[in-house]
């Protein structure tokens, strides 16, 4: 478990985290591995956890009936996968597929939610970090929507 705590503490997502927080999280954490071309989660499933990606690449996909799945974004080393665990109704909105072998730390969402409710300092810190990621993803999505390289 010490190793897991160190991995969490060293992950960029937790950079500058107060030293006792990673220890609080470790109880909710476990190692995860996904083979290439396997689904980490699928749209509609309960969002019970999120992942700190340590290696490999994950595609966030959305399914459309008349065509192949659309790859919305890819996520890689140092990034966070999944934030539906944070907000009701705690359901996945996209598919996540490993397009390379992926190593990650899975953090149990229910466990985390309980800890965040009990310790609002931790909860606020987590929310700030997720808010930043959501803001970056929203900006990137808007930028992507602009389709700036298209011929007009």
């Amino acid at each position, binding site marked *: 478990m010490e190793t897991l705590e160190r991995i969490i503490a060293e992950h960029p997502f937790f950079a500058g985290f107060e030293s006792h927080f990673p220890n609080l999280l470790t109880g909710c954490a476990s190692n995860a591995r996904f083979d290439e071309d396997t689904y980490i989660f699928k749209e509609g499933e309960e969002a019970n956890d999120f992942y700190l990606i340590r290696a490999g690449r994950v595609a966030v996909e959305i399914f459309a009936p008349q065509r*192949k799945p659309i790859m919305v974004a890819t996520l*890689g080393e140092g990034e966070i996968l999944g934030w539906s665990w944070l907000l009701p109704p705690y359901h996945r909105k996209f598919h996540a597929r490993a397009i390379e072998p992926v190593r990650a730390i899975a953090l149990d969402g229910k466990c985390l939610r309980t800890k965040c409710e009990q310790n609002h300092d931790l909860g606020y810190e987590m929310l700030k970090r997720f808010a930043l990621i959501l803001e970056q993803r929203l900006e*990137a999505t808007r930028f*992507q929507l602009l*389709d*700036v*390289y*298209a011929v007009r």
Partner: protein
Amino acid sequence: MAAAPKIDPMLPQQYSVREVVKETADTFTLTLESSNGTAADRFHPGQFSMLWVFGVGELPISISGDPAQHHRLVYTVRSVGQATYALVSCEVGDGIGVRGPFGTGWPVEQAHGRDVLVVAGGIGLAPLRPVIYEVLHNREKYGRLVILYGARSPRDLLYRKELTAWARQPDTQVLVSVDYGGLSWRGHVGVVTTLLKFARLQPPRSVAMVCGPEIMMRFVARDLETHGLARENIYLSMERNMKCAVGFCGHCQYGPHFICKDGPIFSYDRLRPLLEEYEL
């Protein structure tokens, strides 16, 4: 009051097409050589020429070739209108009028001893390719070279073989992302700014050179600043309507700047107050 004879900057030199390479469905790379065998002027990475097609018109096009091989002028052109279509439709042996090189160029000398971050979007990789050649030819003069390249889709990627070759060079990192990936695409999907977190360089000792659509450059410059690059170490290449390239026609004015003779490359600290104004 006899005038000292000076060259006429509006008069093109005659070149002919030596090679045409299809890069993507709508983008071609043309290699030109002087028709009368005279060597072209040396150019600085980031400079552009005015290319004239007989009876069609003239266009500003950045030089995308190797500055060490200045006897040949290389341009990568995307066909988006009548004049660019005429250019990419040229065949080997066709004549083209060339004026230039014009403009200030990328700060390749100021970047000596520093990490170089090249951020390109779409056809914006073409004006940056001479920087990459320059750094790779003078590897000892620079720190790390990081190339971040964003394109619309995998089939819109320019210079694919070269990207692979550059990635194998020492102290060089090449990251490519597309906005729309197909299922067979194994690389990054997402806008070019999402690559920044994977760039291995030291922001305080880096110089960034950014080229792409203006919106893309705004997003990139903002994110580079967040990542710790100083505004004066971020350079952008601007585009405005241009008829003469020598400051006479007035079209390319951008606030106090003439894109043609003061630019097209400017540091972000000089552009920052202008970039966010509507219809400047």
